[in-house]
């Protein structure tokens, strides 16, 4: 199974539902280590994306660029900007394509990760959303089958959270909380769990 406009539109619906569902949870997680707006950022971003689904281009590059712009417009929060950056990187590489194979997911996610790293200047391993993406890129690498890819991505975001929970935050507002962050989940990694699970249609 390959990913095309129809698949993307269905994913947007699931993503919006997931953003609504996890709104409070993400705000609370960000509230404990930051300014408590992460649920807002994700929900508002998905609302704006949803408003554009009627004219979602068939060209996947253009479609993802449209999604990126929704995130840029919706707010200036770190997560929104990082999402826009990641989407833009994928958009560039998909320009002109109307379908993409599941086997390419790993490469695309890695592209997003790299662009976001360039933008935010954080290290891999710093307990941020980058580490979730890194885990997803690795876990899906070499997989061809859509179901396998979805399964691998879905467990990778869970694993990433588990693997980093006992480490200390080094980036963003959370950094100031130092050792207190040990044992706590990074809000951005939680948000990526919401996103990947919705994309993979796994719960």
């Amino acid at each position, binding site marked *: 199974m390959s990913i095309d406009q129809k698949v993307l539109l269905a994913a947007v619906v699931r993503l919006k539902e997931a953003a609504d569902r996890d709104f409070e949870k993400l705000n609370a997680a960000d509230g404990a280590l930051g300014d408590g*707006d992460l649920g807002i950022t994700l929900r508002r971003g998905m609302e704006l994306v949803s408003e554009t689904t009627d004219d979602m281009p068939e060209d996947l590059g253009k479609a993802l660029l449209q999604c990126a712009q929704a995130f840029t*417009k919706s707010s200036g929060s770190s997560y929104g900007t990082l999402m*826009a950056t990641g989407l833009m990187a994928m958009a560039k590489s998909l320009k002109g394509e109307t379908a993409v194979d599941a086997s390419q997911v790993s490469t695309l996610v890695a592209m997003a990760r790299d662009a976001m790293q360039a933008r*935010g200047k954080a290290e891999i391993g710093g307990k941020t959303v980058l580490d979730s993406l890194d885990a997803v890129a690795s876990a899906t690498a070499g997989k061809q089958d859509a179901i396998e890819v979805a399964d691998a991505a879905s467990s990778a975001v869970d694993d990433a959270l588990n693997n980093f929970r006992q480490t200390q935050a080094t980036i963003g*507002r959370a950094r100031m909380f130092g050792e207190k962050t040990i044992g706590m989940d990074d809000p951005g990694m939680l948000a990526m769990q919401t996103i990947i699970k919705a994309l993979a249609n796994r719960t």
Partner: protein
Amino acid sequence: MKKILNAPVDYVDETLEGLMAVHPEYYRLYGETNRVVARAKETAKGKVGIVTGGGSGHLPVFTGYVGEGLLDACAVGDVFASPSSEQMADALRVADRGAGVLRLYGNYGGDVMNFDMAGELVEFEDIRCTSVLLADDVASASIDEREKRRGVAGMVYAFKTAGAAAEAGQDLDAVTAVAQKTADACRSIGVALGPCTVPQAGTPTFEIADDEMEIGMGIHGEPGMRRGKLLPADDIANEMMDRLLEDQPLSSGDKVSVLVNSLGATPAEELYILYRTVKARLEAAGATIVMPLVGRYACSMEMAGVSFTICKLDDELESLLKAPCDCAFWRVG
């Protein structure tokens, strides 16, 4: 939430609407989302532009300092949230008069990413941009990790000196160098006694007991260095001065300006009480105080507490600091 507002979501737009209504001689709104504040009067062609941006809730920072001898434009975010990169790009566009634009703002993750992105956007339009980040809060990272420090009230000094340099016709590199020199020369520290409430969150940014204070707390309620019993004013001032002078030692013959700034609720009376000790400490270190600033220059809405900023001056910075400027919140000369 003990605040005077309508719908929390309208807090920033209504603030700007009122600001424009009161001061049409200083400000005008610009951009698709009306979230860029520019000078009322277009500046002359060839003047270097200076743009800032950041979250709302800090008046006079950031927006207030748009004015002659200061900034050209400001991108306005929601309360304590970065403006979007599009808004920043609009601010860069309106500020560009053909000589390039300095991005001069506080070191916060979201702002940095967005200003970088905004710069990339306007590069396509041949607008040359430089960046200087304020990272003056000594409580937010050690001096070895200076690049991780947050930007706080020190930016007022950088707005002033860079603004004066630009007004004097210096080119982008020179204005940028002045801003960087000022940013390097500033050290700040805050103490918080009480929180403020972000309208859309609806709950206070932190909790603190009635007899407590927190030294080093950030202007958005970021955790500080030490929470303890509320001390007498002189002890608070001494502890804050200890940290500042440790970070940037002063010696005989040094010239400094100092800003004793209320975070919002703390009244002018108490700033003057603190200033006595600030002055005594600076003079004991052998420094001469030039143009001390005492008042509300960089606030966090109704937060109770103060910040001190020391800006070490050389002759160039001193004369730029004393040059005329004019906005609704600050006038020199």
